[in-house]
């Protein structure tokens, strides 16, 4: 079935490019399993998967955007806003805590799409601006939310829906934290499992499968590939390029929104500065999984490889007892990214030689 889909599973020489991320992942997993006993457990795997699910969702959205030839730098800030909303609303209605952030994400995506398709602002600039504005928004709404949550805490007597507010002052800034409700099915999103697999992982898997289906089996999905592959040609062929782009950014926003919901459920308290840098990690995951930044090439499904690779690195480093993990993590991410891109460039060149 996949062989019918042209470059999404290209025949012949391209094969290496699309299987490279899988090979890398398998190699890492094998080596780690052999060398690190702590790695081999199901529990560890699920742990990693659960943590990676958040970035994973963002990466799926980013994958669609990049496939269409664009880029979205605002997903990190979108996640923050969404997480704040989720944490706040969880104290009132778990359903709203899931639905509203995602809707907010879609709206933000629509704003991005509008800036890009209507005002013809280059995606880089447009999403850079949105990123900044949303970050500011996140910081601004936090104290409002915090204050609003404070009032019920003084009057309510029910311990089950207790909220706590911590407001720390940092020189001229006010950083607040919005804490989610401490139990109820919202928080259970984090702890709950089906057949031993955490909800988070299932949510990510479900989204991934949905993304694969959309990208491979719907007109819209193929339109994304077309627009990314050759926007002019796609326009001449009659595809509605602007509408496609708009939807793609809305998907990105929705995914970021969902990631925010998961974050709130997992950590339990949300600060407005979370999600910073997520957009870059998502871009790295997308690029490692073989999707070209210029668009039109690659398979959404492979994003899982990129996400897992980037997810296993801190895990492995932890298990190896390195005292500091953040920078080694970054270092390896950077090196992997370079290696992946160089590899892709070399393959592309050897393919086009003689053209």
């Amino acid at each position, binding site marked *: 079935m996949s062989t*019918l889909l*042209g470059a999404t599973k290209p025949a012949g020489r391209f094969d290496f490019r699309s299987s490279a991320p899988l090979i890398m992942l398998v190699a890492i997993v094998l080596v780690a399993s052999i060398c690190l006993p702590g790695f081999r457990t199901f529990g560890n795997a699920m742990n990693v998967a659960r943590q990676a699910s958040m970035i994973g969702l963002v990466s799926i959205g980013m994958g669609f955007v990049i496939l269409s030839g664009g880029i979205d730098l605002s997903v990190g800030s979108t996640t923050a806003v969404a997480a704040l909303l989720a944490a706040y609303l969880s104290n009132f209605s778990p359903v709203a805590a899931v639905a509203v952030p995602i809707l907010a994400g879609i709206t933000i995506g629509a704003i991005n799409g509008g800036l890009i398709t209507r005002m013809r602002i280059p995606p880089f600039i447009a999403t850079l601006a949105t990123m900044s504005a949303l970050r500011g928004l996140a910081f601004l709404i936090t104290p409002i939310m915090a204050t609003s949550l404070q009032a019920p805490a003084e009057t309510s007597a029910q311990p089950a829906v207790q909220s706590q507010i911590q407001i720390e002052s940092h020189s001229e800034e006010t950083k607040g934290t919005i804490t989610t409700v401490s139990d109820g099915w919202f928080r259970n999103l984090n702890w709950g499992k089906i057949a031993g697999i955490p909800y988070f992982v299932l949510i990510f898997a479900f989204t991934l499968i949905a993304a694969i289906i959309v990208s491979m089996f719907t007109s819209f999905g193929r339109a994304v*590939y077309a627009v990314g592959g050759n926007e002019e040609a796609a326009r001449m062929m*009659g595809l509605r390029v602007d509408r496609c782009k708009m939807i793609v950014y809305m998907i990105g926003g929705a995914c970021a929104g969902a990631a925010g919901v998961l974050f709130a459920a997992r950590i339990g308290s949300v600060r407005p500065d979370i999600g910073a840098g997520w957009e870059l990690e998502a871009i790295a995951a997308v690029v490692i999984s073989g999707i070209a930044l210029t668009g*039109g090439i690659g398979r959404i499904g492979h994003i899982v490889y990129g996400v897992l690779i980037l997810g296993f690195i801190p895990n492995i480093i932890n298990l190896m007892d390195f005292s500091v993990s953040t920078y080694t993590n970054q270092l390896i991410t950077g090196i992997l990214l370079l290696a992946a891109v160089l590899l892709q460039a070399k393959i592309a060149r050897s393919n086009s030689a003689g053209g």
Partner: protein
Amino acid sequence: MLQMTGICKSFPGVKALQSVDFAVRRGEVHALMGENGAGKSTLIKVLTGIYEKDAGEIVFDGKRIALSTASQAQSLGIRTIYQELNLIPYLSVAENIFLGREPRRFGLIDWRAVKSRAAEIFENMGVTHVDVRRPICEQSVAIAQMTAIARAISTDAKLLVMDEPTSSLSENEVRILFDVIERVKRQGTSVIFISHKMSEVFEISDRTTVLRDGLLVGTYPMADLTKLELVSLMIGRDATSVLSERRPTSTDLEDRKPLLGARRLSRGQRTKQIDIDIKTGEILGVSGLLGSGRTELVKILFGDTPAEEGTIEIGGDKTSIKSPRDAIRLGLGFCSEDRKAEGIFPTLSVMENMTLGILPELSKGGVVASKKQREIVETYIERLGIKCSGPEQRMKELSGGNQQKVLLARWLCKKPILMILDEPTRGIDLGAKSEIEHIIADLASRGVAVLMISSEMEELVRSCDRIVVLSEGKKVGELKGSNISEENIVDMIAHGNPSLEGAVDE
């Protein structure tokens, strides 16, 4: 099938079409001929809805239509296959055919149907051994073209416009294309065929319409014309030619030292085993219809696209020219025919455009000596009559002709030993044209060799000492001395073989 009457279209300063009539019958292949600027592409763009006509009437399939958008034309059944082949390179053949209209099952794309229907279409076209699953970028240009045609057919096109479909095809592939066109014809679809390859036009078309300078020359059944007549109709006589006298050839041309000798240059389908020689101070013209491989040849000489086969010698020494920097170092200069893509730096100033090549000579320690720079620029502005508000004006604001002059000046500054000019007077008014021709002659008299491509034969006849004629990638002949004339050039092109060898010296 199609009847266009009295079509007029003007752009600021240019009358692209003046009262042109054009008719295509059902199920016929109709060739639209004319040189650059004749109005072919404008006419087609009016037909396909990209431009709106200023006057005239279009009747399609019995109905009067007013075309204002491209999608309107498409929905009526008018489909264009462009030279750039608007296809998505990374998607498969089958997918490109059905993009936007994929067959579905239960709401999702049915890939099996996509594959089988695509294969079916190809079968009906008589094209076999196409793997419809492979991406376009892995296919030959021929298959890509077939895909574009297949897409058009699968949408029940009634009229197919093919713009230079054979420019990158091998002979075998052209054969396949023609078979497909025949089939398509038999199914009642009409084809408008635009090409400069005479032999092909004669083979495949039923009738032809010739345009020249925006006017209709005539419509003729193919059988009534010879190649010679067709080319003459296309070229015509330019009555407003200002200089009709040939430049006197230097008498000592035979004794000049050979400057550059190239043997058996080949590259792909466009350049086939070409030998070329040029002497110091000689003006060598390269003639041939569009698509004959002239630009490709000179780009090989300049190192932009290295030859796959063949050698180049300069001043007797074998050289290897792998990049423009190599060529420049050897003393070559090159003025591209596509100013916009390969010549000008649009947002930079006239001064910068002109002096980018000689910056090292103009500067000390990396700092540009702006006074010296300005002097040089102003000298050339005056010498070439460049109309601009000053050296600081942005290049993109200049008219095409003035831009060309700036580009010429850029290379003149470098004092090359061989100057390659690709269509140096394209888009330039007559006054400026003669100025440029003087400059070229001046260059030659100072010992600079000039290799000049031009689509205007009278220009070549006026200025050149020798003319090399290309046709379909091959050199078909050379004209020297008193043999240089438009008729002879036309003759060589039409007959595709050297009927006039060598020279009769004066």
